[in-house]
């Protein structure tokens, strides 16, 4: 059975007042993760083919072609895992 860990290499809280969360996908899985997220989330706009501004339910976030997603307003690890599960599976 696939799990979040199959896709995610790192989860980092950012330094600064914003308290964003950056999810970095595993290099070999990043294209698949990006494709799956693009299928689930709504594209608000694509910037220079590098950044996708997306929304999903009440969340809006940015995804980068390098396989990184920057998420705002995440309150807990559980909330983050739920969101990733919904986006990836």
């Amino acid at each position, binding site marked *: 059975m696939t799990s979040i860990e199959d896709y995610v290499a790192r989860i980092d809280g950012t330094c*600064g*007042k*914003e308290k964003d969360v950056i999810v970095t996908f595993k290099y070999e899985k990043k294209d698949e993760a990006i494709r799956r997220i693009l299928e689930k989330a709504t594209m608000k706009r694509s910037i220079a083919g*590098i950044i996708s501004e997306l929304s999903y339910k009440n969340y809006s976030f*940015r995804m*980068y*072609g390098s396989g990184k997603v*920057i998420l705002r307003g995440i309150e807990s690890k559980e909330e983050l895992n739920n969101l990733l599960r919904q986006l990836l599976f």
Partner: protein
Amino acid sequence: MLNPYKIREDFPILKRKVNGHPLIYFDNAATSQKPWQVIEAIDDFYKKHNANVHRAVHTLSQEASELYETAHEEVAKFVNARSIEETIFVRGTTEAINLVAYSWGLRSLGKNDEIIISLMEHHSNIVPWEIISKITGFKIRYIDINADGTLNYDSFESLISKRTKLVCISHVSNVTGIVNDVKRIAKIAHENDAMLLVDGAQSVPHMPVNVKELDMDFLAFSGHKMLGPTGIGVLYGKRDLLEKMEPFHGGGLMIREVSFNRKTGSCSTTWNALPWKFEAGTPNTEGAVGLMAAVKYLKHLGMENVRKHEQSLTEYALPRMLNCSGSVEVYGTKNTSAKSGIIPFGVKGLSSHDVALFLDNYGIMVRSGFHCAQPLHELFKLSSSARASFYVYNTQKEIDRFIKVLKEIGGLQ
């Protein structure tokens, strides 16, 4: 002037690509890349000389000890310390400041005493003092910062008094790159019988620093920011001050004698000579060897040349950043003669992390966040900032590519 294109040949990592683009490393204020000369010195140590230092009479131990002591000598000469007795090897700037805070501050500062820190300090020059202050009750007073990020010298002079026992200041701000007038601060501190501790993490790697000329009592700096390995740093201290201080850590090497008294049932100890009194346990010998190689490399380049090269890069980059888009902001003073090679910036409407991730996509590495200096960001009313910081191997061509991508980011709004 330096030839950065020739220097780049010494840095293997600069040949790699990141996200399909040639690496542009503009995060030198966080850590520097390492030349072959440093990598090979460490490699050579493990292949030929590895043994514990100051422990044995055999050949390898003597060779390792010789290298370790020579590293102290090279570093002492690099900052113009009087001797190796004034040059203590630690893990880095943070540990060097903690050493002074615990060995001197904990024992010497009481309820009626004060120390002065600036609001532009890295957390490593704030937090140790806040911890010790809560134990002994001394007061910390903070020097104000002007709107352009420069130190408010009037504020400093208004705070200092006969109660002040220590002034702690960065030589160069790790956020704005502003160079503080340490000589002026030392003079005022000493006129008031206070000591001066300088955080040299962002100055020693980038400009000539002469502890005697600047009359510093303590100077802390890190090896990894000056082409050396991580896990090695230096505390310079005036010999008479270090002699009076008690050790920070206890263990092997830092003692001369540990004698058990059967009558009292306890051990009495006498401390080793400087600098070993402050270097307990098996030291980071390979780190010291690597740091020595880094110091030799920088000396060969010439620290005046290093300073000029970084200043020329800042002079090249700063106006281009300001002109590249209305939405790109540069924080702090724009007076490049008062700055090192550090430029904090932001793009309106984007978080610093978005900016850093966008640049990362093009192989350009910059730092984002508070840079461990939250009080300064609060003063600037910034939730965070992006930071480009240059070193000896950076070029104008790299800045051109950085500006091109920055224009793209600025045009996104």
